[in-house]
């Protein structure tokens, strides 16, 4: 066999006391698409950040074309022809610069012509975007004005500008619609034909199986196995990822559903949301599912008074609720666990205590003075109840892992005893154990008669937890499905703007999307 283009051997990396990688292995051949799979925190991003020079490995070595190389900065990696499309879009986009400048960002840091010709870079940028079939993006506008998906296309374009040996895609399709993803697949196919080695990371198993040549599964920072895609089967791969067969199904709901708790009619916000109506009953979990950018977060925020409405009414417990600000929503008995917990839900520099008591300070203060003991008592209570792993109630939240942070973001609302909980992607970035805990918690809330709205783009999870599912597409609710009716395929169809008749025909079409992916 020919020598691999790239080979990483016995890579180890620690962050403080956290071991991200240990003895990780990875090989890439010329002109192959090699997918890396693994649960959250398996070390995928860390591995490729080492490969692209962002981090340096503590141990192990990297060979390119058979020669050992050191990659001590992103620049060094680029000089070797290794380019990367990073997972977090906003860390890599400079929103103040134009699209063209963003696409050619790497070239500015390289040696070369001192003067920059605006015309030339615009042209270059246009031609790359054309290759991606994204001609609709105006290269002269500021990147700040792009949608998330467009930003992702810009980042992909950035990697295509250069004549790369290796291009790494770290979850590039997460913010893309199916249509856009397919454009990316064709580009990857072209790169492959040109002999570029592509590393492809994704949580969407079907696409991995569709486009990759080989699959490497990682678990707990180390290599589990590398498969030839043609020979691999999905269940096997999943088992390799999890270390056990998947049994995520929750018990079906056993308690009764009560009277209508939340009634929303004809709600619009003048921008994304158009004429939405929905109801939630006490004890019910209603899933709101849609692809990224469908407007789920906007809906959650709008219900919670975070963004102003242009029309529509919200009734809680049969009474009209005037919600102009989250404070009104809280008073009316709502709680929101926002999508971006670090940015919107938590005070990460503060202690667990301070976070936990915050939405309901009155309960933790005698007259005006804070009652520190009561705060501590409550903090310990939620630690126990949600099984939060932490040293003490006084540690700043930055020291907690993502899943535990998410639990605090939920736990802080419990003292309020709200009637209605809005969960916006509560399992995002959360490992499987924590996920199960969170599902159980949601179930508990429902059992005790609370209403829950569960916003998610993880369709299978929504199916698992919800009693009823509303599908969102482009700011509207396009379909309501009962738990029995809901299948991945149907939801996905409506969520990507498909219509009923069309859907029935396609249901058993060539692309099978019945597997559960985590």
């Amino acid at each position, binding site marked *: 066999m020919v020598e691999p283009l790239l080979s990483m051997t016995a890579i180890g990396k620690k962050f*403080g006391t956290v071991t991200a990688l240990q003895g990780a292995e990875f090989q890439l051949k010329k002109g192959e698409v090699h997918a890396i799979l693994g649960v959250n925190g398996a070390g995928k991003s860390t591995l490729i950040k080492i490969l692209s020079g962002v981090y340096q490995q503590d141990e192990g070595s990297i060979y390119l074309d058979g020669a050992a190389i050191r990659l001590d900065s992103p620049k060094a990696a680029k000089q070797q022809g290794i380019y990367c499309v990073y997972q977090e879009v906003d860390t890599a986009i400079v929103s103040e610069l134009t699209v063209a400048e963003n696409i050619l960002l790497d070239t500015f840091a390289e040696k070369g012509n001192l003067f920059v010709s605006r015309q030339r870079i615009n042209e270059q940028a246009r031609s790359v975007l054309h290759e991606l079939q994204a001609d609709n993006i105006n290269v002269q506008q500021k990147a700040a004005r792009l949608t998330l998906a467009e930003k992702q296309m810009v980042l992909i374009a950035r990697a295509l500008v250069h004549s790369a040996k290796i291009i790494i895609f770290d979850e590039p399709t997460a913010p893309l619609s199916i249509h856009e993803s397919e454009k990316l697949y064709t580009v990857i196919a072209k790169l492959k034909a040109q002999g570029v080695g592509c590393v492809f990371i994704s949580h969407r198993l079907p696409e991995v199986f569709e486009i990759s040549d080989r699959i490497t599964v990682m678990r707990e920072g180390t290599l589990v196995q590398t498969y030839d895609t043609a020979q691999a089967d999905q269940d096997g791969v999943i088992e390799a990822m999890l270390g056990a067969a998947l049994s995520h199904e929750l018990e079906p709901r056993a308690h009764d559903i009560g009277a209508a708790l939340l009634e929303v009619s004809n709600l619009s916000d003048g921008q994304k949301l158009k004429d939405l109506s929905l109801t939630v009953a006490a004890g019910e979990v209603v899933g709101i599912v849609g692809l990224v950018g469908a407007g789920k977060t906007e809906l959650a925020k709008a219900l919670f008074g975070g963004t102003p409405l242009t029309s529509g009414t919200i009734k809680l417990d049969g009474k009209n609720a005037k919600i102009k600000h*989250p404070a009104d*929503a809280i008073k009316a008995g709502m709680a929101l666990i926002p999508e971006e917990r670090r940015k919107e839900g938590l*005070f990460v520099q503060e202690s667990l205590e301070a976070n936990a008591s915050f939405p309901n300070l009155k309960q933790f203060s005698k007259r*005006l003075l*804070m009652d520190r003991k009561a705060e501590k008592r409550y903090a310990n209570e939620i630690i126990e109840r949600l099984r939060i792993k932490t040293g003490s109630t006084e540690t700043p939240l*930055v020291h907690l892992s993502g899943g535990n942070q998410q639990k605090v973001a939920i736990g802080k609302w419990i003292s309020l005893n709200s009637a209605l909980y809005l969960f916006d992607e509560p399992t995002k970035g959360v490992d499987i154990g924590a996920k199960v805990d969170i599902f159980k918690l949601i179930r508990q809330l429902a059992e005790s008669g609370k209403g829950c709205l569960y916003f998610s783009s993880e369709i299978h999870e929504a199916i698992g937890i919800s009693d009823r599912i509303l599908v969102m597409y482009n700011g509207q609710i396009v379909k309501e499905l009962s738990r029995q009716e809901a299948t991945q395929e149907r939801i996905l169809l409506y969520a990507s703007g498909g219509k009923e008749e069309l859907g029935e025909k396609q249901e058993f079409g060539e692309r099978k999307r019945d597997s559960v992916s985590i």
Partner: protein
Amino acid sequence: MGKNKNSVKENAIQFLFKYGAIALLIFIIFYFSTISDAFFTYGNFSDILRSISIVTLLALGVTFTLVVDGFDLSVGSTMSLSTVVSASLMVWYDMPLWLVLILPLLIGVFVGAVNSFLIVVIGIPDLLATLSMMYIVAGLHRTYTEGYSIYNNMPLTSGGTAPGQLSEAFLWIGQGQMLGLPVPVWIMLVMVLASYVVLNHTRWGRVLYMTGGNAEAATLSGVSVKKVKFTAYVISGIFASMAGILFTARVGSGQIDAGAPLMMEAVAAVFVGYSVLGAGKPNALGTFFGAAVIGILLNGLTILNLPYYAFDIIKGGVLVAALAVTYVYAKKKFSKA
């Protein structure tokens, strides 16, 4: 877990951070005491406290705005305005004491309100908005007095002399003694204590800090960030006005531009205060402590007969040292995240 070597170093840093500032203060006091008998006396310390009282009030206002992650550069001008207004009310208009005290405070409230309007409603970043207000208020206060300082029975530009003068009762605020301490010191101590209690032990304080820590999360937890910011800037305006009133009473006349040189000093005090007791954030006791360190240092350096022009070097040096400790520590603390 193989971190025993690191943890010694880390503990040292933590210790330095928590008690470094206080140790420094004790060392300074000890050092100056050995140099001069006059230094460690009740009289000298009550003088030092009096000398920092005005800056401390100003700095408390800045502290509140920093707590909500803002910044008020206009406190100096606001203090100047309140200085001349309080003096003019007595000298030009012969007003009763209570009005002389209330009106400048209302002006402080007003300036704070305009600041927060610019910041919250228009959306100008705090630093820039208050910088503009610094200019505007400075111009206003000079225009109000037409560039004159205000003193008892001053001649008026319209001819004649001003009817009034600063009353004894008013001057007592700045120059009197009470229970063995100067009145300004009492005012300062009460305000420091009040700010400390409000910021560290009440619900409001919690809301202020959390808003500063993460405005978005605070909003989604039901806090009206606009109102909170508004309050902080109004409080800052009130403190600046109090400083102005105190200045007038201390000095016995309404000096023009009294506040301008104090603004930077107040900011310095707040920043030195960051590192006190490991707070790592703006806090009332730290602010007081910062003002005291600077005051004691300046007092001691004069005793040492250090040339006056070198003082700023020391002030800057102390600031750098305090900041370095704070931020090196912050890096350690959060790098693991």
